[in-house]
């Protein structure tokens, strides 16, 4: 099981304890490539995962009212130089359930590989999901990552999603998240990506505030250097009375990097309000000079500023 050892090593390198993830009280799905390494349900969290030649298919059902104390772990990776990993995920949260889901995507080994995730998530009335997806890539620049998610928030549900790819070369990233936000529900989507070399990044996130008093925030933080390119599209639609949405894009470019940001807003109800802000530019001069006045070199100052933005 050389791959399993690599998985353990990779988890250790990102500060995760494999023993904890695989412990008896931790709900999890662990897979490398199209091989299912481990899956575990716990009371109130039913996990059914299967491996086929087309990919990993996982379904997670969190029971109504279940407050899951430990994070649910999804751990995906590839530990060969070439490969494909397709994941189909279905997550259903019952009413008033509460859970944190950590998705670790470990791709530091492959030279050329593709990871695709198709997720369908339904968050029941009053339920709360905190979702963190963190990617760890190597230096090859040959990864292609294609995450797709269709998310429904029912009345009073809450979603806090945090996607990050700031370690290693991105390769090609094409994110497409689509979220429907119901009455009194709240959705916050945060994405942080650091592109280098010839990386190509596309972030498309869409919030549709369909319910009365629905709230939504799209926050993107992207930095590119060398010849990397990024396209950031944040769409928010306010379609109900009292709906409030905001799109906040801040992107930093260095060297020959290119970023385009398109915060798009659409309002179809007179009592809805959606706002947006977007800032693209090089590293802020006053921030630089402030840090340099503490003794940091220009390079250290840039590292701090970009690192903070992507934190």
């Amino acid at each position, binding site marked *: 099981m050389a791959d399993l050892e690599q998985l353990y090593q990779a988890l250790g390198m990102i500060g995760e304890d494999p023993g904890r993830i695989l412990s008896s009280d931790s709900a999890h799905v662990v897979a490398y490539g199209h091989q299912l390494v481990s899956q575990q349900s716990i009371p109130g969290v039913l996990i059914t995962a299967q491996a086929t030649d087309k990919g990993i298919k996982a379904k997670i059902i969190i029971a109504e009212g279940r407050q899951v104390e430990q994070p649910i772990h999804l751990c995906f990776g590839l530990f060969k130089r070439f490969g494909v990993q397709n994941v189909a995920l279905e997550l259903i949260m019952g009413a008033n359930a509460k859970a944190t889901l950590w998705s670790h995507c470990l791709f530091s080994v492959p030279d050329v590989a593709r990871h695709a995730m198709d997720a369908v998530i339904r968050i029941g009335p009053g339920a709360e999901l905190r979702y963190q997806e963190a990617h760890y890539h190597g230096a090859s620049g040959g990864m292609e990552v294609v995450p797709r998610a269709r998310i429904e928030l029912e009345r009073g549900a809450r979603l806090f999603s945090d996607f990050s790819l700031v370690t290693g070369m991105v390769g090609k990233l094409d994110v497409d998240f689509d979220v429907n936000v119901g009455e009194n529900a709240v959705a916050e989507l945060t994405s942080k990506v650091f592109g280098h070399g010839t990386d190509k990044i596309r972030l498309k996130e869409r919030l549709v505030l369909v319910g009365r008093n629905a709230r939504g925030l799209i926050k993107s933080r992207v930095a590119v250097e060398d010849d990397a390119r990024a396209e950031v599209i944040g769409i928010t639609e306010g379609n109900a009375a009292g709906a409030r949405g905001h799109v906040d894009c801040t992107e930093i470019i260095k060297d020959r990097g290119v970023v385009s940001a398109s915060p798009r807003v659409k309002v179809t109800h007179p009592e809805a309000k959606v706002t947006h802000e977007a800032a693209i530019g090089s590293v802020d001069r006053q921030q630089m000079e*402030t840090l340099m006045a503490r003794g940091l070199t*220009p390079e250290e100052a840039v590292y701090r500023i970009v690192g*903070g933005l992507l934190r």
Partner: protein
Amino acid sequence: MNDTPLLELRHISLRLDGRQVLRDVELILSPGEIHVLLGANGSGKSTLAYLVMGCGGYRPENGELLFGGLSIAELPIHERARLGISLAWQEPARFEGLTVAEYLALGSPSRSAAECLDRVGLPHQEYLSRMADKTLSGGERKRVELAALLALGPKLAILDEPTAGVDMLSLGEIIAVVESFRETGSTVLLITHQEELAAHADRASQLCGGRIVFSGPPEEVVAHYKARLCRRCDGETCHG
């Protein structure tokens, strides 16, 4: 007090966007001195601060800029900082993803962040974990800036209008902060338009129209400042 000047500006002039902003500035600070630089808005006070710190575009067109006898006119900001110069900005930058504790740990601080926050009226239990970003009010951010300089303990602390703005330190509080710099042996160049602050300085200077028009004991400078406060002169009419 050591007789060898810590900071010397000799015949410094500076032009920005074709406009003469500093004219033949003469300013000398001794080690350990608390020096108040008084001047109305637009007199060139902040420009002088940026020039000493070495900010982009603030390079003197002539004159000498010496720190501890060493010419620093060609040095970039971080090298000046490493010699012991630092600046608390009038409107400090905000930093996403950086906590107040991390901000105060930048450089090589000589005092604890907690102690310095308390000194500027920010309870450290509450503020160390706060982010140094736009969630801080303008006043809170300025206090954090002062705390950062206190923690750093530079040889020369330049404080640019520390009392300006809403929710800022009271006169008594800023005087206590300046005394904290004195305790650690820092020289302070306190830039302000409030003459009340000069009473607690060792020496003071008045800047008008980009020119130092009067230097000396604080009470004399304040008297001159009150009597000859002019808004948009070239500094010539203020002499005498």
